[in-house]
């Protein structure tokens, strides 16, 4: 309950800060639309000469793209800004204030600021998914929607935990933007269903950099194509990564030397 209230306060504060930059809001939304256009064009280009890629038709692939948009919105709205904050906290030593508060320090450090406008990507992404379902003339059953929702949540947890594992390295290296850039490179592979890639890439994107679990898996579940094993794999990965990121964070905090004086 306390954490929900805090989250709401952080969100509200971020909104307050951004209200001051209204032009920014307009520009950001415009950019979101433009980016979506670029991504759409890239997917469409693949379908010019073939009816399916990797066994997915165009509207089906659009669901994957929509999910990609949702997650890139979450990364830009939540993960990236908080990473910048964490790096700043470590560089300036203000992490001290976070670590001396009687709440979970990882929570306090990683969900503090939101670039609210970037959530437009999430809305646009969901819009694309709804549109694609319409094009397919497919109404998923409520069970499929439920599994989809669960996998979406699992995806959010996975991307958060994975990202945090990388950002926690900042306790040692301070600058970590290169590492997260590397993640972003892998992440762009998530625009397409993983079945378009060779086996070893698919394996990499499922188990090492779990991008497939963010986009392809939930999309497949919505279309009723995902086996229970894979759904459970996704949930298991989410739980495992979350535990791992918390453990790594605590380990890092113990080694935190707190900069300057």
């Amino acid at each position, binding site marked *: 309950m306390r954490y929900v209230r805090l989250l709401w306060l952080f969100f509200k504060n971020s909104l307050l800060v951004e209200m001051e930059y209204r032009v920014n809001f307009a520009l950001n939304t415009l950019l979101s639309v433009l980016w979506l256009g670029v991504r759409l064009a890239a997917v469409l280009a693949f379908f010019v000469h073939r009816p399916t890629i990797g066994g997915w038709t165009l509207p089906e692939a659009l669901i994957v793209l929509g999910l990609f948009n949702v997650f890139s919105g979450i990364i830009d709205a939540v993960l990236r800004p908080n990473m910048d904050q964490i790096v700043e906290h470590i560089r300036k030593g203000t992490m001290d*204030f976070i670590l001396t508060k*009687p709440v979970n320090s990882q929570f306090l450090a990683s969900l503090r600021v939101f670039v609210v406008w970037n959530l437009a990507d999430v809305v646009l992404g969901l819009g694309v998914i709804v549109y694609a379902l319409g094009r397919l003339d497919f109404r998923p059953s409520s069970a499929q929607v439920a599994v989809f929702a669960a996998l979406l949540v699992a995806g959010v947890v996975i991307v958060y935990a994975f990202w945090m594992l990388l950002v926690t390295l900042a306790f040692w290296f301070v600058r970590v933007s290169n590492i997260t850039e590397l993640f972003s490179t892998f992440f762009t592979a998530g625009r397409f269903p993983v079945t378009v890639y060779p086996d070893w890439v698919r394996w990499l994107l499922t188990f090492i950099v779990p991008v497939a679990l963010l986009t392809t898996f939930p999309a497949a579940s919505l279309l009723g194509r995902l086996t229970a094993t894979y759904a459970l794999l996704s949930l298991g990965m989410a739980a495992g990564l979350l535990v791992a990121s918390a453990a790594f964070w605590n380990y890092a905090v113990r080694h935190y030397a707190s900069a300057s004086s």
Partner: protein
Amino acid sequence: MYHIEVRHLKKYYEVHHKAPGFWGSLRSLVRRETRTVRAVDDISFTVAPGEIVGFLGPNGAGKTTTLKVLSGLLYPTAGEVRVLGFTPHERQPAFLRQITLVMGQKQQLLWDLPAIETLLINKAIYEIPDDEFRRTLDELTELLELGTLLTKQVRKLSLGERMKCELAAALLHRPKVLFLDEPTIGLDVTMQAKVRQFIAEYNARYGATVLLTSHYMADVAALAKRVIIIDHGHLVYDGDLETLVQQVAPYKVITVTLRQSVSPSVLKPFGHVLAANGVKVSIQVPRGTTSRVAARLLQEFAVDDLTIEEPPLEEIIQHVFTGGIREASPDVA
């Protein structure tokens, strides 16, 4: 029962040593040379509830490191530390709820928002009930003379105003133990005095234990009866500030403004002449004889003004660091 117990605390750091210049950087990429810094090297002390203790020492003496160990930010290399009965580095919520850390050089206030927003976040973090929050806020507003500062954007506040809000944010949960690291740094003299007065009031009102580091001796002299002096990670002195002054500097300074200037040699018999600046003369006199010498001065010269002062604390501390305390303090290990 002590609020703070420190026994044989040691905190060593490994630091990477890098030769200057490009080649140095390159070489350190291949082979890192590390050096152990003994920031705190075997320090023991205890602090009773409600006590204000001044923590003194030159830069790099280990003051901040000790405060960080006490507030749970750093793991001690060796030794035992207890604060309010807790082991700080376990950072148990019940422990963190009762302490606070204020650092003059770092701020927790959100830069782009009014300070009240940070206070509201802290209210949620410490789960302070509404009525208690309002009461504490009223008290802090009164003590710190916050007025309407809380609703102004933090980046538009002056340094002193920001420090006041910073203190309000740090004390909202009425901590029992305060760790203040240079709380008055960079503030002007009036603001320093106000912060100092506030700390004294807070201590008196809530019986909070205060451990304070400062570069400004005036802070320490005004607040702390007891001082702990550390140098190079070692404890050099722990005890009464007054006793220290008497031991290290067994003299006072008499400054007289004479109606007409006299030759310094005439003043020699009164004591060691520190400065003779025309009609204004400063003489260093042994403590016990101060009033007698002053009386004689008034008798033998036409005096416009006469003051008796303690030697500046800076000088005393300097004296301690250059080894003057070794024979003076009974606490030297």
